[in-house]
């Protein structure tokens, strides 16, 4: 009787230990996946943001801003240059990250008063108003980036990778004394 009880308790402990170990492993795996996904999203957003900043910075059309009208001319963007500069920086960032499989879409609002692009970005990755219809009142560059992120724990549930979608945009502020 006593031996039987001891063996039974020992088996329960083993089973419990195995279950707890699996729970910890699963929790650790989930934490790893959460961290990987959050880190990837943060990095992707930073990369996209830097790309758009470079796009608007190097895409500014300086010619004519000192025209003698008694005020500064409103700044506009060279759409081709702005888009190209943003793409170049994005490619560099992705290369440094070691990501080769990615998709992106760069759009430029070149006019001094901005504009609107319906259906951009293609995924609902932005918060707030204007989701799916990008509208701004300043010359801007917007970049949508999508790339896969390998998962650890979710792979056991049939999702070995998750697609990360980010969107970032940068604009040029017109000075207060700009010409109307």
């Amino acid at each position: 009787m006593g031996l039987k009880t001891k063996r039974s308790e020992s088996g329960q402990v083993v089973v419990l230990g195995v279950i707890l170990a699996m729970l910890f492993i699963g929790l650790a795996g989930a934490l790893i996946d959460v961290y990987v996904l959050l880190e990837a999203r943060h990095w992707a957003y930073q990369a996209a943001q830097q790309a758009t900043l470079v796009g608007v910075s190097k895409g500014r059309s300086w010619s004519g801003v000192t025209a003698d009208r008694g005020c500064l001319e409103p700044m506009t963007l060279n759409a081709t240059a702005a888009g190209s500069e943003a793409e170049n920086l994005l490619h560099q960032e992705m290369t440094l990250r070691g990501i080769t499989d990615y998709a992106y879409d760069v759009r430029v609002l070149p006019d001094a008063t901005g504009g609107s692009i319906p259906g951009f970005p293609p995924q609902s990755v932005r918060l707030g108003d204007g989701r799916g219809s990008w509208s701004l009142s300043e010359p801007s560059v917007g970049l949508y980036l999508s790339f896969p992120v390998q998962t650890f724990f979710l792979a056991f549930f049939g999702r070995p990778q998750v697609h990360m979608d980010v969107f970032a945009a940068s604009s040029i502020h017109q000075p207060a004394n700009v010409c109307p």
Partner: protein
Amino acid sequence: MNKPKRSSYYLMSVMAALLMAMLLTNVVSARRSSNNGWNNPACSEPSSKLSGSAYEEYIMSIRGTTTYEYIPANCPSCNQPAAPAPQNNDDDEEEEEYHPPAAPSAPSAPYVPPPPTPTPIPALNAALDAEYSSLVLFASQVGEPAQNLNGTISGGIGGPYTVTLHLSDPLGNESTYSLTTNGAFHFGATDAGDPNFGATLEGNWSAWMVASDSVGTSDTSTSAGWQVGWYPLHETP
């Protein structure tokens, strides 16, 4: 005492008669000459040029002329200068002007040169103009021009002019530059040694100059202003 002879009385009577006849002849001749008149336009009396008599020849020989004008003593107005003849505007020919007789010359005095006539010197005028009314902050970094100031100075006794250029930034800090010019100058980034001349701070800038000539006359120009702006980038949420 001897009594004069009758023949002597006759002789004296004849001589007296001759003398009287000569006197009468002279008086009549003088009257006839005065009645001939003269031609001074200032008098209403008739006039004529006298010539031919011995007296006239004598006068003309003294004057060195061939004619002279006799002015009778009983014409007071004839001693006044003749009134100038009325001008005919339709006649383009130059008419001879009347010159009054010269006043008697005063005793000669040592020659004193007339005092120099002051020549008015035009006032010194300095003007400064900024080529650009708006600039981009640190313009040279983005390939845009910095400020160029164009000054013109006129008047005074002429160049060269000494110019002190004052530059005030948006914070009120003032910097000065000195230069010399003959009337017009151009001052830019190269002259100031600053590639971002007038564009190193965002806000309103101003510049003016004080120009002076070699005698110390100076003038301060009006202020030329411009604004420096920037187009900041920002992330869009």
